[in-house]
C-alpha cells in the first residue's frame, strides 16, 4: 500500500522545486549554440546536425516536427514566436510553407555561398530561402498484388477501372506534400482540370489516409495495391526489403512529369544566433550534405547541375514554377477540403 508521510512530503516538494530551478537555469543559459526547427524526419536530420556540431563545435538545439501535427506544428510555432523568435534556422522538407513564412515576415534574407550550382528557380529571388536536394512524388506499388505490366505509369492511371478503388490510396491533399502536389496540378493543368482530377478520385472511392507514411504502410501490408507518396517514404520500404516498387509517374514523352519537391532552408528574422545560423545554412547547402541525405534515403534527386550531384538519377520534373504552385495553395487546399472531408 502506498504511504505518503507528510513529514517527507514538504521536503520532497522543496527538493523538486530546487531541481526544477536548476534545470531552468541550465536550459536558459546562453551557450555557443544554434537553434534549428526542421520538418525533416529526425532520423535523417539528426545525424547531419550532429556532424555539424562535431565539425564546428557549435551546439545544435533542434526541434523536429511530427506528421501527426500535419506540419502545422513548426510553422505555427514560428509565426507565434515572430516577435520573440527562438529559432535561428528553419529547414523544411518542402517549399510552400517556407514561402508562407516569408510572407508572414518570419524570415531574414541570406544568400549563402554554398548555394552555388543551385538553379535560380529553386531559390528565392530576394534571398529569403534556398532550395536543395529533392524528393519526388511517386507511386508505390505492391509487387504481390500487381504484376509489372499492371503497374500504373501516370497519376491518371489511378482513375482506371482496372484498379479496384479500395486498393488505391493517397494522403489527404490538404496537408504536406500531397497538398503541394494538388497545387502543382492546379498550376500546371489549370484549376478546373486540377479540381476535376481529385473529384474523380473522390468519386471513384479511393482510400484517403492520414499521411504519406500511412499510405506506404498500407501498400506494404497489402491493403493497397498502389499509393501516391514521397520518395523518402517509398525508399524506406524498398530498402527494408518489403515487396514494393517505387515508380516515377508521367515520365513518358508528352507526360506531365513528376513533381519534385526541394528541401528549403532559411534564416529566421531576429534570430538570437545569426552568425551560427548562417554557418549552419552554409553547411546544409553544401554538396557533401546533399550527398549524405541521398545516401541516407531522405532525398534521391539533386537540383544541382554540377559536381557529384549531377550523377544522380535524372527524373523528368513537372514544368511548373514553385511560385506558381504556392499561389494555388489556398484555392486547392480549400477545394480539397470540400471534396475529401465529408
Amino acid at each position, binding site marked *: *500500500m*502506498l504511504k*505518503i508521510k*507528510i513529514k517527507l*512530503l514538504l521536503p520532497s516538494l522543496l527538493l*523538486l522545486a530546487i531541481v*526544477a530551478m536548476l*534545470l*531552468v537555469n541550465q*536550459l*536558459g543559459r546562453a551557450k555557443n549554440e544554434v*537553434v*534549428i526547427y526542421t520538418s525533416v*524526419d*529526425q*532520423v*535523417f536530420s539528426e545525424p547531419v546536425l550532429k556532424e555539424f556540431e562535431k565539425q564546428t563545435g557549435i*551546439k*545544435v*538545439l*533542434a*526541434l*523536429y*516536427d*511530427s*506528421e*501527426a*501535427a*500535419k*506540419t*502545422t*506544428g513548426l510553422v*505555427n*510555432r514560428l*509565426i*507565434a*514566436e515572430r516577435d*520573440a523568435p*527562438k529559432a535561428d534556422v528553419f529547414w523544411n522538407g518542402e517549399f510552400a510553407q517556407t514561402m*508562407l513564412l516569408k510572407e508572414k515576415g518570419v524570415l531574414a534574407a541570406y544568400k549563402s555561398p554554398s548555394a552555388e550550382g543551385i538553379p535560380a528557380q529553386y531559390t528565392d529571388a530576394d534571398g529569403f530561402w534556398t532550395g536543395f536536394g529533392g524528393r519526388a512524388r511517386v507511386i508505390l506499388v505492391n509487387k504481390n498484388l500487381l504484376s509489372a505490366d499492371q503497374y500504373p505509369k501516370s497519376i491518371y492511371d489511378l482513375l482506371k477501372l482496372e484498379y479496384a478503388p479500395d486498393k488505391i490510396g493517397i494522403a*489527404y491533399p*490538404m*496537408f504536406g506534400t500531397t*497538398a503541394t502536389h494538388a497545387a502543382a496540378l492546379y498550376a500546371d493543368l489549370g484549376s478546373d482540370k486540377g479540381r476535376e482530377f481529385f473529384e474523380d478520385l473522390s468519386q471513384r472511392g479511393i482510400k484517403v489516409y*492520414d499521411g504519406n*507514411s*500511412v499510405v*506506404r504502410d498500407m501498400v506494404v*501490408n*497489402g*491493403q493497397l495495391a498502389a499509393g501516391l507518396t514521397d520518395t523518402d*517514404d517509398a525508399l*524506406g*520500404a524498398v530498402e*527494408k526489403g518489403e515487396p514494393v516498387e517505387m515508380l516515377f509517374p508521367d515520365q513518358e514523352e508528352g507526360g506531365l512529369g513528376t513533381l519534385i519537391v526541394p528541401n528549403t532552408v532559411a534564416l529566421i528574422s531576429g534570430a538570437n544566433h545569426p552568425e551560427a545560423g548562417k554557418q549552419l545554412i552554409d553547411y546544409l547547402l553544401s554538396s557533401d550534405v546533399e550527398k549524405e541525405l541521398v545516401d541516407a534515403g531522405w532525398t534521391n534527386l539533386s537540383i544541382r547541375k554540377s559536381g557529384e550531384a549531377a550523377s544522380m538519377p535524372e527524373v523528368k520534373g513537372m514544368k511548373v514554377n514553385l511560385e506558381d504552385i504556392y499561389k494555388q495553395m489556398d484555392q486547392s*487546399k480549400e477545394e480539397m*477540403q470540400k471534396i*475529401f*472531408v*465529408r
Partner: protein
Amino acid sequence: MKIHDKLKCSYFNINEAGMLAGVLLAAFLAAFPVLLLLADTLQSFFAGSPDLVTFLVPDERRLQLLARSMGISGAVAICGMAAGILTASFLFAWKSKAGLAVRYVFFATAAVPPYVHALSWTSALVWLNSLLRGSGLAEITLQGNGICIWVGMMTLLPITTGLALVGFESVEPGLIEAGCIFKGGGRVFGSIIMPLAAPSFLAGGAFAFLISLMDYTIPSLFQVNVYSLEIFAQYSADYDAAKAFLLSLPLLLSAIPTAMLFQWAFRNAALLNTRGDRKNTIEMEMPVVLILLQGLALGISFLQFSVPFISLIISTGTPLKLMNVFLSSYHEIGFSMLLSVLAATIAVFFGTLAASGMNRKGRIYKICWIFILLPFAIPAPLTGIALAKGWNSIGAYGTRGTIWLPVMAGVIRFLPFAALILLAIIKRMDPRLLEASRIQQKNTLHGLVKVYIPMLSKGLVAAGCLVFILAAGELGATMIVTPPGSGTITMKIYNYMHYGASDSVAALCLIMLVLSLIAGSAAFTALIHSEKGFKGGD
C-alpha cells in the same frame, strides 16, 4: 443545505473569499487558452475580417461532419462505458490479492498513443482476415464507422473501466450487506450499487465522449471523416487561429452540457464515504445473464491489453532492440518524466482548489466549473498556440527555452481530470472527522497539514498519477511549446512512426506502457485504499 455540506463548509475555516479566489485562479488557468483565442478572434474580426462570421455558422457539409462526430463519439462513450462497467463489476467482486493485481493491468495501455492502438488493431485484423480468407469466410471490413467505434472504445477502455471501478468502490459496503439480507445479488446490484456508482459512470462516459470527439487520427485510418479533421484542415490551409477557434466552437459548446452533467451528478451523489472493510461484504450471487455479460466484457478487456501489447512485442523484435532504444532515448525519457511530474504536481494543486470549490454551493462555482472543463473541447495544438502567444505577450523572461511552457501545456490540458478525481475523493471524506479536527486544530494551516491533506493524500497521488500518464502521452500542445533540443517520448514516437521505424516505435511504446503501468497502479491503489487510513467511528 445538507448536514454533510454544512459540516464541510464549516470545517474549512478559510473564508469564502479565499476559497473563491482559489477556484477563480484554477478556472482562469484552465480557460486561459480559450480566452486568448477568443480575444484573438475578436481582434481579427474588428481589424477587418468579417468573413470570420461565415465560420460561426456551419454549412451543410460541416453539419454532417459534426453529426457524424457526435454519433461516433457517443457510440464510443456508451460502448466503452458499458464494457467498462461490466469489467469493473467483475473486478469489484474479485476481492482477492490476485484480483487487485489484475486491476493494474487495465491501466497499462492508457498512455499508449491512440494511433498506435489503431495500427495494432489494423495489423491484427489484417492477420485475422488472412485466416478468414483462407477458410473461405467473410472478412472483417477495415473501414467505416463500426471499426472506428471499436478501436476508439479499445483506446479509452482503461479510463472508462477505471472510473467505473472507482464508482463501485465508493459504494458503502454496509448498504450492500443490508440489501443482500433481503434480496438477491442481482437486485442489490441493480437497485443499490448501480445508482450509487452512477456519478462515476456518467463522468467516465463524458470523458470518453469528449476525448473521442477531439480525435481524428483513429477515424481517418478507417476512412471516416470527422469534424476535428475539418478544424485541422482549415488551420493547415491558412494558419488562422481565429478561424480554427470559431470552427472549434461547436465542440466547445458540447463541453458546457457535459460540465453541467458532471456538476449535477456529483452534487446529487449520495454520501460516498466508505468505511469498513470491504472484505467483510457478503458475497453476492449474480444472475447468469450478468455473469455472461461480464465474461464478454472481460474478453474485450483482455483483447484491449493483449492486441497492442503483442503487436508491440512482435514489432520490437528482441530485448536487445528494446534496450538499445531505451539507452538512445534516455534524454527524452528523462524530459518526459520531469515534465509529467511537474505538470502533475501543479495540476493537482489547482485541481484541489477547484474540487474544494465544486463542493460548495453557489452559482459562481458552477460557472467556474464550466471554465475548468473547457480544455476538454479545445484541440491540443490550439492550446499550444494560445499558450505560446500568451507567454510571448507577457514577456515571461527567464523562462525562454525552459521546460515550464510544456509543463503549463500539460497542466492546462489535464487540470479537469485532476479536479474531477479529487472531487470524488473529497466527497468521500468523513465530515465528522473534519469537524472533530477543526475543534482540536490550533489554526487553519495546522488542520490542513495534520488532517485535511493526509485525508486527501491518496486522492492527490491518484490524480497526480493520472495527470502524469496523460501528460506523458500528450503531443499536440507539447510540440508547439517544447524547447528546442528537448523532446518527449511521444514526440519521438510520432517522428519515428513517420519514418517507418516500426521496431523503434514499438520499443518506445513498450517503455510508455511500462511507465503507464507503474503510474496507473499507484493511482489505482491510492484511490481504492483512500479510506483505509481514516476509519474513525468503527
